[in-house]
C-alpha cells in the first residue's frame, strides 16, 4: 500500500512539473531571454540520463547479475561507455546537422524519402523492442507491491503513460526527465546505503567474497554457452554502439544550443551514468546473499524490490520497498514516455502526413502494441530484451550515423542495403534465440546477442554497396557542414 502511495505521489509530481514546468521557468521579467538562452548542459545531461536509465538499469541489471554473475556489470559498462562514442563521434555533428530524429538525419545526409521511411520503420522496431521490457518491469513491480496479476500491471502502466503524454507530457520534457534522474538516483541510492548498513558484517563480507570461478567470474556468459569471452564482447559492442544509435537519445542533442554544448552534455551524461550504475551492483551483490532463491523459482528481475523487505523487516522494510518501487516506476515512466514520443513521432511524421490528433493517436497505438507484446513476455529477462534493442540500434543507426558523418562516400543505396541487412540480421537472431535452443556453444551466443556479427555485417554492407555507386555531388557539402566549427 505504501508503495502504491509512493508511486502515486511520484506520478502526480511529474505531471505537475510537466504541466507547470514551462510556466514556472519563464516569467514576465524583461530579462527572460538571458535566462532562457540556454538550457544548461547540466540540466540537459540530467534529462538524457533520466530518459536513459530505464527499468533495465534499475531492475534488470541487478536481476541479471543475480542470475548470470558479476560479469553482467559489463552491460553497465557498455551503457555508460556508449556516451564516450556519442561524445566523440556523433553528438557535435548531429547538432550541426539540425536533424531532430534519425530519419531527419538520413534525409539531411542522403536526401532520399525512401531511406527516411526505412529509418522510421527501424525506429519502430527498436522502440518496441525497448518498450516491452519497460512494460514488463512495470507489471512486475505493480504485481509485487499490490498483488495484482501481471497483465493488470502491464495494462495499467500502458494507460498511465499514454494518459500522461496526452495530458501535456508532449510539451516540456527536459525538466521532467531531469527530475526523474534525481528521483531514480536517490530512490535507488538511499535504500542501497541503508541496506548495506543494515546487512551486518557477516553478510557484507559474504557479498564481497570473490572467487574467480562461476558467479564471480569477471566475464559474462549468456545462456550458459561456455563462451564467456565472445558473449562479453558481443554485449559490449551492442551496448556501446547501440547507445550511439538510440533514436530517443539522439533527439535530446537537438536541445543543445551548439555542437560544443552537445558534446559537453554527452560528457555530463557519462558522469551521471557512472554514478548511477554503482547502485544496481550493490543490489546484485546483496541479492546473492539474501535472496538466492529467486534464481531457481522466481523472477530475478524483482530482486531490487524484494531485497529491502528481506534485509530490513517491519515498517522500515515496507517504506524502503515503497521507495525502491517508486524509483523503478520513475524509470519506467520517464523511459517509456520518451520512447513512446519517439515512436509516435516516427509513426505520425515520417510514415504519414503530420498533424496533432494523429500524434496522440500514434502514442495510443504505439502503447497498445507495446502492451500486447509485453503480455507474453513475462519470462524474458529485462536486460536481455533491452540488449536486443541496443543490438538492433548498433547494427542499423550506428553505422548510418558514423559513416554518414565521417565518410563522404556513403550513398543512398549503400545506406539502404546496410540498414536492411542490419535490421533483418539483428531482429532475426533475437527471434531465433527466443524460438530455438541450439545448445551450448558459440552459436547460442551469436543468436542471443547478435551484435558481434551483425554490426560488422551492417558496416561492411554499407561500405561495400556504397563503393559500387557514386555519392551525389552535394554529399561533400553536407558532410563538410557537419564538421565546420562555426555552424
Amino acid at each position: 500500500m505504501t508503495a502504491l502511495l509512493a508511486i502515486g505521489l511520484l506520478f502526480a509530481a511529474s505531471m505537475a512539473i510537466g504541466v507547470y514546468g514551462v510556466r514556472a521557468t519563464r516569467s514576465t521579467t524583461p530579462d527572460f531571454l538571458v535566462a532562457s538562452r540556454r538550457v544548461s548542459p547540466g540540466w540537459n545531461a540530467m534529462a538524457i540520463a533520466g530518459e536513459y536509465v530505464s527499468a533495465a538499469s534499475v531492475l534488470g541489471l541487478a536481476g541479471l547479475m543475480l542470475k548470470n554473475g558479476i560479469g553482467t556489470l559489463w552491460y553497465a559498462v557498455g551503457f555508460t561507455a556508449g556516451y564516450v562514442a556519442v561524445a566523440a563521434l556523433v553528438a557535435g555533428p548531429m547538432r550541426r546537422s539540425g536533424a531532430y530524429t534519425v530519419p531527419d538525419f538520413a534525409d539531411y545526409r542522403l536526401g532520399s524519402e525512401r531511406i527516411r521511411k526505412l529509418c522510421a520503420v527501424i525506429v519502430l522496431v527498436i522502440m518496441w523492442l525497448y518498450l516491452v521490457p519497460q512494460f514488463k518491469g512495470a507489471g512486475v513491480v505493480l504485481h509485487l507491491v499490490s498483488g495484482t496479476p501481471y497483465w493488470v500491471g502491464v495494462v495499467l502502466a500502458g494507460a498511465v503513460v499514454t494518459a500522461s503524454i496526452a495530458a501535456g507530457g508532449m510539451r516540456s520534457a527536459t525538466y521532467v526527465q531531469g527530475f526523474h534522474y534525481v528521483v531514480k538516483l536517490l530512490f535507488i541510492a538511499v535504500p542501497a546505503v541503508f541496506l548495506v548498513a543494515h546487512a551486518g558484517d557477516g553478510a557484507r563480507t559474504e557479498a564481497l567474497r570473490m572467487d574467480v570461478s562461476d558467479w564471480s567470474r569477471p566475464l559474462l556468459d549468456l545462456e550458459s554457452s561456455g563462451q564467456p569471452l565472445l558473449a562479453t564482447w558481443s554485449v559490449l559492442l551492442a551496448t556501446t554502439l547501440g547507445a550511439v544509435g538510440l533514436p530517443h537519445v539522439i533527439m535530446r542533442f537537438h536541445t543543445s544550443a551548439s555542437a560544443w554544448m552537445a558534446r559537453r552534455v554527452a560528457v555530463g551524461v557519462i558522469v551521471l551514468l557512472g554514478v548511477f550504475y554503482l547502485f544496481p551492483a550493490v543490489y546484485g551483490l546483496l541479492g546473492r546473499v539474501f535472496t538466492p532463491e529467486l534464481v531457481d523459482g522466481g523472477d530475478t528481475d524483482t530482486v531490487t524490490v524484494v531485497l529491502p523487505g528481506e534485509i530490513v523487516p517491519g515498517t522500515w522494510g515496507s517504506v524502503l520497498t515503497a521507495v525502491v518501487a517508486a524509483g523503478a516506476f520513475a524509470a519506467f515512466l520517464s523511459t517509456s514516455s520518451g520512447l513512446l514520443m519517439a515512436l509516435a513521432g516516427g509513426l505520425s511524421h515520417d510514415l504519414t502526413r503530420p498533424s496533432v490528433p494523429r500524434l496522440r493517436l500514434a502514442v495510443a497505438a504505439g502503447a497498445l502494441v507495446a502492451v500486447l507484446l509485453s503480455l507474453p513476455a513475462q519470462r524474458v529477462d529485462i536486460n536481455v530484451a533491452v540488449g536486443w534493442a541496443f543490438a538492433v540500434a548498433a547494427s542499423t543507426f550506428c553505422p548510418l550515423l558514423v559513416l554518414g558523418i565521417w565518410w563522404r562516400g556513403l550513398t543512398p543505396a549503400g545506406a539502404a542495403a546496410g540498414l536492411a541487412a542490419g535490421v533483418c540480421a539483428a531482429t532475426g537472431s533475437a527471434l531465433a534465440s527466443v524460438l530455438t535452443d541450439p545448445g551450448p556453444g558459440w552459436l547460442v551466443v551469436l543468436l542471443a546477442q547478435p551484435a558481434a556479427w551483425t554490426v560488422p555485417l551492417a558496416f561492411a554492407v554499407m561500405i561495400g554497396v556504397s563503393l559500387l555507386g557514386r555519392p551525389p555531388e552535394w554529399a561533400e557539402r553536407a558532410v563538410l557542414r557537419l564538421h565546420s566549427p562555426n555552424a
Partner: protein
Amino acid sequence: MLDRMRRPRPDEGMTIRVLTVVQDIDTDLRHGLGGRGAPSAARRLRRLLAAQAVVLAGLDGTVAVAGPDPDPDELAALLAQTYENGTPAHRPPWSAVPLIVAGELSGALAVREGAEAELAAVGTLVSRSLDHAALRRARGRIAQAELRTLRAQISPHFLHNALSVIGARIRTDPARARTLLNDFADYLRYSFSAQGDYATVADELQAIQTYLELQRARFDDRMELSVRMAPEILPVAIPFLVIQPIVENAVRHGLEPKPGPGSISVSGFGEGPLCVIEIEDDGVGMEPEFAQAILAGSGGRAVVSPDTGRASVGLANVDQRLRTVYGPEYGLVIETARGGGTKVVIRVPRFMRGVVAN
C-alpha cells in the same frame, strides 16, 4: 451506334504509360534546361519519340544528348536554321523545333529519325514544362523579394515612436532611455541583417524582446508581456522574421486601438517532431472573415483593415513564406473574434531539409 461501340478503344495501358512519361519529363525539367534533370529528360524523350537520337539545346549550345553523338557541324547548321526562322526545321535525317518559353525563343529540341507530327506536339510540351520551371523560379524570387521588403519595412511610424519615447525619457529616466536605445540598436541590427533566410527561435525571440520593450515604454508600461518558451525549441531553425511581424500585428491592430491595459503572450513548446509557437493578445480582435481574407490574400497583396485602415501585409507574407518552405499544411492558424483578442499559431516541423539557421 453499334459501330461506335465497336470502334477500337486506344490501349489504356498505353495512355497511362505516355502520360507517366510526360509527367516524368516535366519533373526532370523542373530546374530548367540547365538543370540536373536535362539528360534524363532527353533520354525519356528519345524513348517517347522512338527516335535514334534526341538533342536538347539551349541558346548557348547543346545541353543534353540521348543516343549516338551527332555530327557537330550538321547539328549547328540545323539549330542555326531553327533559331533564325523560329520555326520547325528539317535537314534529313534531322528535324528540330524551337522551344518558346514565355514568348521568347530559348532553345530547341532536335531529333534524328523521329516522327515529325509527334515532334511538334512534344516540342510544345517541353516548352510548357520549361515555362513552368521559369514560373516556379520566379515565385521563389518573389518570396525572397518580399522578405527583403519586409526586412526593410520597419514602419516609419514605429521608428518615430521609438525615437520620441526615448527622447522623452532622456532627462527623466536616463538609465531607462539608455537601455531602450540599446534595444533599438539591437532591433535595427537584427531587422537589417542580410545574412541567411533562417534564424533560430532564440534569435527571433531576442528581436521580439527588444521590439516589445520599446513598445512597452511607449504604452507607459500598461502592456503586460509574458513569454513562456520550452527550452527544447530555442535552437530550432525557422524562417527569418516570422514571429516578429505577428507580434507587431498584435500590437498595432490588437492593442493600440484598445483603451486600457492590454497583454500579449508568446509561448512555444515542442509537440513531438513539431515545434509550436503561439502569439496571443487580448486586444480588439477582428472579424473572422477578415482574418480569412488576410490569409486568402496570401501573395503579398495588402489587405486593408476596415478599422485601422492599415495594411497587414505582414501576416499574409509570413503565411506565404511558411507554406513555401514547409508545404501547404503548415500555414498560419488565426483564432479571433471581434472584441475577443487574437491568437496566431505557427506549427512547423523541427527539422526540414535545407532549413538551417546561420
